[in-house]
């Protein structure tokens, strides 16, 4: 059985690893540490889930979110924002499906993601 695709966009390598480990049971995980490469990949694939940090090198998380929401073909994508910036989290809570404030518990993340699979 093919696992759905999840894109993890997080510039902190440790967190990136933790997120990947949390989701790898239920998803095929692709990791990106900058916004631009994530955007480039988004032009090619239709992931089920995007785990998105906001402060990123290259394209910002909010830009990626806007891009996803503007693209009709990506309308089924669930976007979970993981950020340490609670102000931005507040601002984007409408557009994103979920907003998790760091530190994110990998256990809870896995439970949440499993429900979306």
């Amino acid at each position, binding site marked *: 059985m093919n696992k759905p695709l999840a894109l993890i966009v997080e510039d902190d390598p440790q967190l990136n690893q933790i997120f990947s480990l949390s989701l790898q049971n239920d998803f095929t995980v692709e990791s990106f540490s900058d916004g631009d490469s994530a955007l480039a990949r988004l032009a090619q694939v239709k992931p089920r889930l995007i785990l998105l940090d906001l402060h990123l090198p290259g394209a910002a998380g909010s830009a990626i979110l806007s891009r996803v929401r503007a693209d009709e073909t990506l309308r089924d994508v669930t976007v979970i924002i993981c950020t*340490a910036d*609670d102000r931005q989290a507040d601002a984007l809570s409408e557009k994103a499906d979920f907003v998790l404030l760091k530190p994110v518990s990998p256990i809870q993340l896995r439970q949440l993601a499993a429900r979306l699979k």
Partner: protein
Amino acid sequence: MNSFISFFDRILTPRLPKGMPAWYRARLTMAVGGLTLAFYFFPEIISHLLVPLDSVSRTEILIILGGGALTLGGFLAAKWGRLHPAVWLVLGGWTLDILLDIAFGEGMELGATMEVWLMFGLVMAFLLLDLRQYLVFAVLQTLSAWLVEWLRYRSGLDTSVSVELHLAATALLGLGVWLRQRDQRQREEAAAALQQQKDYLQKVIDGVQSPFYVVDVKDYRIRLANRAARDLGLVTDKVTCYALTHRRAEPCGGDEHPCPLQHVRVERQPYTTEHIHFRPDGSTYYAEVRGYPLFDENGEVVQMVEYSVDITERKRAEAEIRKLQQAVEHAASGVAITNPQGVFEYVNPTFERMTGYRREEVIGQTPRLLKSGKQSPEFYAQLWQTIRRGEVWQGEMINRRKDGSLYWEFQTIAPVSANGKISHYVAVKLDVTAQKEMEEQLRQAKETAESASAFKSQLLSRVSHELRTPLGGVLGYAELMQADAFGALNEQQRQAAENIVESARYLSRMVDDLLSEAEISARSIKLHNDWFVPAELLETASAALSVQAAKKGLTFRTELSPDLPERLVGDSRRLGQIIINLAGNAIKFTVNGEVCVCLARPAPDRWAIVVSDTGAGIPKEAQDYIFEPFRQVDNRITRQNRGSGLGLSITKQLVELMGGQIALASEVGKGSVFTVTLPILDAPGE
């Protein structure tokens, strides 16, 4: 008949009592005349009635007719020609005598001649004298006739002598009575003329509306008073000038009430002063009293004409003006009055202090003296346009003091109009330099504070970001270890991982609380008010709380009051934070029993979050400070109940930010009840 009556009336009216109806006077006169004739001619009339008419002597009829014509002629002559009646009496008598002699020679009976004379005198008297005197005359004449006849009879004198005697007696009598009457009439006329003059004078002085009276130098009594003076009780000859007007028992005197009479008498010149006078009703008024001396033929002052004017209104106006003047003189604002051309006519001491110019340096100058050049010509043009239109100008401007220094003044310029034309401008100036400087300082301080605040918020946001990211690593790896993501752990390792997770969570909460506290302190927190469903708020907040409670074996209960609206306005995230803070504390400090979160509506315009527990309770002395940051009831921080110490402080500040209050009711050993009361808002807004 009427014309006959009016003829009598015209001639006789002056002689009859006044007020008697005209027709009555005429009839009375005729009746008196008729009775008189009857009285004299009664014997003849009787004899005529007894003998036939043709036997009446032709001579007698002629005498009667002639006497009547003469009488009338004499009357008219006396009336129009102002001929002395006595002269006429003699002339008339002689003429009659001559006529009779011509007509009858010596043939006429002497008795008839005498009767003619008597009748003639009587008719004359009737026409010339007034009624009363005529009656006196008639009686006297009759008596004298009888006396003469009696004397003639007793002495046996010739009848012709008695005729002469009758004539003389009648003439004297008539003359005497007439003279007496004339004197009396002259006296009466003089008295009437005097009265007329007095009436006229009284009318003239009564026409003067202010009290006008004459005071006698001897006894201070009023000798003449006009109506206004009488109204004040100044009755002529009875009261003194000082008794009623001053309620005094003795004449005025001293500086307060100088006596005009004394001044006028001594100085022999008019005198003016001010007195307080009493009206009859006891009220008082200010009077300006003017006294004018009246001299007698020796040049002595015998009386004084006094004339007083009520000046209460003037005094009041003067006092008012003095008061205003004082107010302007001592006003804290600078006051300047200019003429319509803007030339200073008055400036007050504050103006002098404000500008550094002395009054005499300013009077005659224009406000250009103070011009700083900091305002444009348009500014002044607009100012002048406004006040010339008759409107008030108000504004701030920079002016220059005498010493050259600049200052800010807030000025109000108002035009003063008289008869529709602007007569003056009044400017009220306030030196607002200090205020301006303070405003500037405040503005700068505010800018500094705002930028500091913005910097602080940025810093906090940055720090929290920097703290949360590594915390994510710590928590994440530890939890993954617990979940055997890196291979199975032994018991010691599992315990260590658990400790790491717990410490990381604590640190995370600490970061959250510090951030909230800092945000609230920096006033950078913004409430996001929107519609929310209270039931959902309660449900969301309870999810984690019920798990925590269950772990400790506590009952966790929620209640939703039915009278709460279905939707409320508020920041649901912050409200959830408040519920979690309060209920989380309750769970933390309760060993057994229950924790209850209740949403209620204590008043129509308020709703409440009530969190109650059956925990240890909070001692009275601690209830005062537990809302302060970093204060906890028991400073012994145990593993079970450690927290940042900021939860209640944040909660309280959030509640106050929302316009609500937080109250605590607690008893040691029984539990605590925190009640957050919030206003029910109508619509989302800042």
